[in-house]
């Protein structure tokens, strides 16, 4: 009656464990160099469990999540949340302040109520009893936060378990490189060229750090560019549609995640101000406005002069 089961395990490699799963609307792919199947699988299960736990906590699509329960509270009523969720909201508020409102997980409530102006100032946090008050009908959406936060937790998990090398690709947009590349040196993370996805428009060299990219299009598995306009400028309420991607590398995956989203809708001077607050940021803006064959690349670094240049083979620049 049944056909014989297909064997879908990866071809056996001695050098690395590899597996993937769906979470937070996208795909997480994990590579653990130097680990065999049994050790790798045990870590993989722990990673999946942790990411699933976080998704169930902050998902807008799970009516039981902490986030949904907060969003469902009647206007004017405050709600007590657990320590972790309170810390999450504090982190969001801090980032909202640092980015002068560009990173804003507060939404304007219901779609048919555009009159409500969003803003984290309408999310009041009371530290003494960990309560939250949403005013003016705002709702929270942690879409620009979740993957970075999850990678932060995964990174902690790896350090606790003494993992020397790991590479986590969370939906292409959030990448975590743990330790050095097993062959030595930095992991070379290329930001794919929009129309030549086998090439990199820019290359980050990182270890024990993360690269996060935001933009209004992504590249599907066949290499095709898919428009996905989902980033709204909180100042104007207008969806950003420019052919621009913003990538941020930082030791903290969460910081990289939040800033890449915010920088997409920030002015250059504002971006520079934020970068000056940290000493480990590298920010790269790739702008295809002048055509896909000549993206304009602008690079900003903590403690360094900013560089600007035209598209060329950037792999030379990696130290």
């Amino acid at each position, binding site marked *: 009656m*049944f*056909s014989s*089961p*297909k064997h*879908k395990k*990866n071809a056996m*490699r001695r*050098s*690395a464990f*590899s597996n*993937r*799963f*769906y*979470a*937070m*609307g*996208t*795909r997480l792919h994990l*590579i653990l160099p130097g680990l065999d199947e049994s050790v790798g699988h045990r870590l993989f299960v722990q990673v999946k469990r942790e990411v*699933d736990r976080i*998704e*169930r906590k902050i*998902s807008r*699509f*799970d009516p039981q999540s902490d986030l949904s329960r907060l969003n469902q509270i009647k206007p004017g009523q405050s709600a007590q949340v657990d320590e972790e969720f309170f810390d999450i909201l504090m982190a969001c508020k801090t980032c909202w302040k640092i980015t002068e409102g560009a990173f804003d997980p507060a939404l304007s409530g219901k779609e048919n109520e555009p009159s409500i102006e969003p803003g984290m100032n309408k999310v009041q946090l009371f530290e003494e009893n960990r309560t939250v008050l949403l005013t003016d009908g705002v709702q929270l959406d942690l879409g620009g936060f979740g*993957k970075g936060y999850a990678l932060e937790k995964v990174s902690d998990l790896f350090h606790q378990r003494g993992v020397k090398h790991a*590479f986590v*690709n969370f*939906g*292409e*947009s*959030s*990448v975590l490189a743990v330790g050095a590349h097993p*062959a*030595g040196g930095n*992991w*070379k*993370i*290329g*930001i*794919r*060229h*929009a129309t030549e*996805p*086998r090439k*990199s428009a820019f*290359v*980050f060299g990182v270890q024990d750090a993360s690269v996060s990219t*935001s*933009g*209004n*299009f*992504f590249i*599907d*598995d066949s*290499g095709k560019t898919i428009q*996905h306009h989902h980033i709204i400028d909180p100042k104007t309420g207008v969806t950003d549609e420019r052919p621009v*991607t913003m*990538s941020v590398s930082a030791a903290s995956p969460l910081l990289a995640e939040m800033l890449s989203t915010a920088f997409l809708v920030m002015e250059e001077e504002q971006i520079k101000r934020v970068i000056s607050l940290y000493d480990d940021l590298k920010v790269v803006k790739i702008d295809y406005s002048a055509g896909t064959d000549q993206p304009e690349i602008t690079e900003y670094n903590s403690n360094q002069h900013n560089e600007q240049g035209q598209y060329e083979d950037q792999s030379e620049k*990696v130290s």
Partner: protein
Amino acid sequence: MRINRKKFLEMTAAFAGSSVMATHMPWFSIFNHPAPDGKGAADRVRIGVIGVGSRGTALTYNLQELAKTMNLEIAAVCDNYEPHFEKAKEIVPEADAYMDYRKMIESTELDGVVIATPLHEHAQMTIDCLQAGLHVFCEKAMARHLDDVKRMYDTHLEEDKILMIGHQRLFNPIYLDAMDKLEKGGIGPITMLRGWWHRNTDWVFYENTGGRGTELDKRLNWRFYDETSAGMISELGSHHFQVANWVLGETPESVVGHGSINFFDDGREVYDNFALVFRYPNGVHFSYDCITSNKHNGMQVQVLGNDGTMELESNMWFEEFPSDPPSAENLLQQLEDGENETIPIGGATWLPDTPLRLGGKYISPEYEMNDTLLYLEGFVNYIKKGSAPEKLTIEGYNASIWTLLAEEATKTGQMVTAPEKYLL
């Protein structure tokens, strides 16, 4: 996307002639090809409701909803418990009201009845109604004893009248979509089913009865007593036993199980927890458990296959093997070769073709529709046509037979198979 009536009809029309519709749920065609709905008094379908307690009231409201769009009348209501009798008259003041169902079928002209009485009363009422020439919609499970289940089924054949059992998932469009996707290999070969129904409740329907063991308690909280119910096995489990048979297109070969009262030891006679394993052909097992002292796991039926998992109660479909991102092969090869070259990887967030929710995707869109209402709409339509797909009755029959066999397994501690005489 939420599916309304119009979109639902487009979907069922698209399934017309498909093998899943023919083999798993031929009754869904009734919505695209309803019986002619004549507007005259002579065309009106006249329904009697027997048993207007908790479930019976819900069914009555559903029938009233249906009467807004169909030529249908609740012509009689019946309940032998005074407060329910009074409530029934209040809900349907225009109907003839009875305390004895035999008087009802004698005195009021009816086309069909809806029976929602305690389990042990189903058989005689159903048989009397069928023999009086009425079509019957009877709440699940069918009867308290195996022989009664068989007698009900046989009478339906002898009298050539419709007998439908209230497993409303049979009319749930999500299950229609799920059956189609399972048949097309959506999760690969099915290798196991798991199901559970966990609640944290004392399950007391009526509080002021004088407590367990009193005559009134036996009458109202009939689900607690061996004579009148198999407890959660018949009142909850039977729904999911029906689903398992339906998904696999088979009936079990055997069942084993255990049950006990380990928390709500208040004088009730039925288990407050049980665990069963049904064995199906080809070595496929359905493991099922029920508990009423813990609700953490909620309610679910999972269909497990080599390529994925479907969670039928939550409309979710999980892939076992998501595809690797394009960068994976390159990166793994480099690690294998001890090289460190640039990996073109980063960009804005990759999204799959179908949106994901908590690591899975919807089996089917979300419906604004109520499967109990669809079931009753089917019942009224089939009354007009004079017959219904036999598979619908058989689904109810097999579920009830295996409900009682499962109970037997828990009581004897033995592996139980179906005696020949109960096989159709």
